[in-house]
């Protein structure tokens, strides 16, 4: 497991440079406007997406076949991708919180509490995204999953839009807070279900 994670991080090393450049850019932008909320979305999401990038690198090198000929089980390969995604998202969360905190300290245009809630909500969304997309990649491969990935982003947006237009009242702040409090449990549950599905797909795959 550790070996696989190290392999992924080394492979992603180059992309981290790009991410840091983007973070600096967004930081300047956020500082200028005094609103760090765009920043958090970008950082968390970019970092989470890198776990998908690592899967496409593996695909290109036909790595899985090689990895499975080593003392690495199919379970380990599947779980390592989830762990990588969670670690990267958490790193994004910590990073964006830190940077957002600085921006707010310098130019207090929103409360820190508000900002933390927004950061966390985006983390939860990115976890939801991972839970949908990783099983699809194990099933169809990275290339074929790209369109579905777009779907996984756009369809919920459309649904949200339709709901907001249809006049159904938005949940109250209290209801939202309840959902927020339950969310850690929901995230863990979703990760568990998704990784089990992925493993069952991958277990049967002939390589």
């Amino acid at each position: 497991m550790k070996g696989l994670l190290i392999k992924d991080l080394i492979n992603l090393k180059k992309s981290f440079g790009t991410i840091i450049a983007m973070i600096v850019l967004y930081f300047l932008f956020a500082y200028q406007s005094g609103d760090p909320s765009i920043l958090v979305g970008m950082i968390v999401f970019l970092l989470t997406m890198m776990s998908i990038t690592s899967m496409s690198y593996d695909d290109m090198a036909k790595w899985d076949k090689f990895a499975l000929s080593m003392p690495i089980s199919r379970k380990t390969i599947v779980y390592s991708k989830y762990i990588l995604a969670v670690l990267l998202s958490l790193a994004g969360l910590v990073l964006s919180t830190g940077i957002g905190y600085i921006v707010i300290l310098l130019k207090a245009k929103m409360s820190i509490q508000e900002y933390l809630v927004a950061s966390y909500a985006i983390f939860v969304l990115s976890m939801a995204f991972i839970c949908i997309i990783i099983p699809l990649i194990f099933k169809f491969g990275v290339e074929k999953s790209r369109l579905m990935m777009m779907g996984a982003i756009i369809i919920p947006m459309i649904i949200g839009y339709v709901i907001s237009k249809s006049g159904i009242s938005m949940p109250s702040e209290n209801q939202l807070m309840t959902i927020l409090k339950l969310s850690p449990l929901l995230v863990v549950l979703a990760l568990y279900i998704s990784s089990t599905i992925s493993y069952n797909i991958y277990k049967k795959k002939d390589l």
Partner: protein
Amino acid sequence: MDILKAENLTKHYSGFSLNKISFNLPKGSIMGLIGENGAGKTTTIKLLLNLIKKDSGKITIFGLDNIKHEMKIKQDIGVVLDESSFHDNLKPKDISTFMGNIYDKWDNKKFFDYLNIFNLPQNKILKDYSKGMKMKLSIAAALSHNPKLLILDEPTGGLDPVVRSEILDIFMDFIQDDEKSILFSTHVTSDLDKIADYITFIHKGNLVFTESNDEINDNYGIIKCGINEFNKIDRKDILGHRKNKFGYEVLINNKQNSIYRDFIIDPANLEDIMLYHIRGDINEGSVD
């Protein structure tokens, strides 16, 4: 003792089946797996490594079932696969970093020693490596956790004769202590004439034979003769024949038989055996 034992390996695909392949690989020896493209060499290797599920059959490696004890067995196997390898943007140092976390017995010093022996540049990424360099790197990585068994799919394919002979030397070194073995597939049969102790020949998913190189040298031969002599050859000894304007060239697998005492028999190398066998298959029934 056998390091590897395959019994009746069977795997069906639509359009291709591997049928009841059996062979044993003793300690301290090199076995070549030969056959035409698509014969089932890679499928056999994938079954040994449990990359694909077998339909039936049994595989024992180091005396253990290959699925029940998969992780334990794989700690002691070094693998080189034909079409998959390390990522293009890695450097050798990166590989040693994570391989050390995969194999319990990974030996960094050994890995870098091999890189030096093979003249592989350490500050280049793999994308800038040639095909031969990549293959040598894969072999270096496969050797650096002190495996007891090497399984290699086409390790010499597409390489020039100099690199190929270097790689064969490494293989010879590897089995010197009589404890370790190598199984490798190839269609460059001249490599095997040099170093293989055993040959397993697969054709269209079926086992043609699995024999020691000595048995092959003792029994197989090519008779060049005219029609009269050709008719004297026992039909069941004939594996294949070619007819040309000077007469017949016949591959037989029983040259010790006294009825061939007066024949001129040339030694048959593996390439002859493969060619005659596969062509004999095409000419089936035309021997008369």
